[in-house]
């Protein structure tokens, strides 16, 4: 099931009902919400943290925080960007502090987290994707996140704006700048991608 197929700018009425019921401690309603969004949340955390265990912990922590904040959730807003925003913030914090030290520890114990993912493509395309992946990681973290939301998770501009907490106009200009910067990085550091 493709993650992006849930991308929508409309408020899902069923989902609003689930959120309402979850606020009233309806465990089945909460299960429905988690089941619907866990894949997107995990993939986003994984893209940010690049480690499955860290991503799993980040999502679990994000879900706990979301559950604790449900009663403050505005039912007139879509649920997914709100949840993703919580997961992004948790993942960012883990990447900045704990993630760095744990990376060092894991290297010390010979368990370096995989920094290069694999792609389900033929070998020559795999290599090209690996290089493009490296180029993306030369970008500032905020630019990387926009690229993940837009191209990896197929979020709409409205959902991206709500997830990262900026106006929709700023999403457009910031994504444009991210792509410009990525082109510069490719031009100067990965010229083999220009072919």
């Amino acid at each position: 099931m493709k993650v992006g197929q849930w991308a929508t700018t409309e408020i899902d009425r069923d989902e609003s009902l689930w959120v309402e019921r979850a606020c009233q401690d309806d465990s089945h309603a909460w299960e429905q919400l988690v089941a619907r969004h866990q894949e997107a949340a995990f993939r986003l955390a994984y893209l940010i943290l690049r480690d499955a265990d860290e991503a799993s912990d980040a999502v679990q922590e994000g879900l706990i925080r979301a559950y604790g904040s449900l009663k403050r959730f505005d039912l007139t807003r879509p649920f997914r960007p709100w949840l993703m925003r919580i997961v992004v913030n948790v993942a960012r914090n883990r990447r900045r502090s704990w993630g760095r030290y744990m990376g060092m520890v894991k290297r010390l114990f010979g368990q370096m987290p995989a920094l290069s993912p694999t792609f389900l493509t033929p070998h020559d395309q795999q290599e090209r994707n690996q290089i493009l992946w490296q180029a993306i990681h030369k970008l500032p973290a905020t630019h990387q996140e926009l690229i993940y939301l837009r191209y990896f998770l197929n979020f709409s501009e409205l959902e991206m704006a709500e997830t990262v907490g900026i106006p929709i106009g700023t999403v457009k200009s910031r994504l444009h700048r991210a792509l410009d910067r990525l082109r510069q990085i490719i031009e100067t550091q990965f010229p083999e991608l220009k072919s």
Partner: protein
Amino acid sequence: MDPLEKELQQMAETFDYPPTPRFASQPQPRPTFVPVRALVWALAVGLFFIGLWAIPPVRAGILQFLQIGSIRIFFTTPTPPPSTLNSPSLPTPTPLYGIDNLAGQTTLADVQTKLDFPIHLPTYPTDLGLPDKVFYQETIGSVLISVWLADDQPTQPRLILYAMQLPDDILGGKFNVQSSQLTQVNGEDAFWIVGKHLLQFYDAQQKPFYQSYRFIAGNVLVWESEAITYRLETSLSLEEAIQIAESLR
């Protein structure tokens, strides 16, 4: 959609994610979140370092550097900072003294359109006002440098504030640091570096960005806030520097 966007989309469609775990459907209420895996690692790390700490050469090695945000402070004896490892023929660059040779002079209005983060400036001291000079540099990431000149010596900086949003693999190295202490800004860890030292930015391959090589004559407070690394260069005391840092709005 242009070719780069198409390539990103194609790459994303073939990205091999690990399987999504089944997350607890009913999160158990707990006062704080403590990842078990991390606790096991933390215990292992603690025991590991307690063992290492007993060995003097290792103790010296562990304290070889400390890091806040994108700034790493090296406690080395006075030697020139390392040049690029793979190009020994490149000369050691002449460090920039002061701000005269800083690149990228611009205005606050112009730089706001380029930055991805909000500009926060100090509101203390009350007579500080807006910066006299503003520089924006993109060589290593997004770097905003705000300079306030001294009233009695208009060519000399009174304060210099760096606000930096850098990729994870870019580091600012502070070399020949003679004295530093851990402190706090807004309750978060910060470093206070006293006395002359060298500042140089490096990429992931430890290659220096030569344009960034600067000789720092004053004291520096380094802290991180909302994923932005700040450096405040000043001749004021630590207490004053913290007050300035905490007045950023």
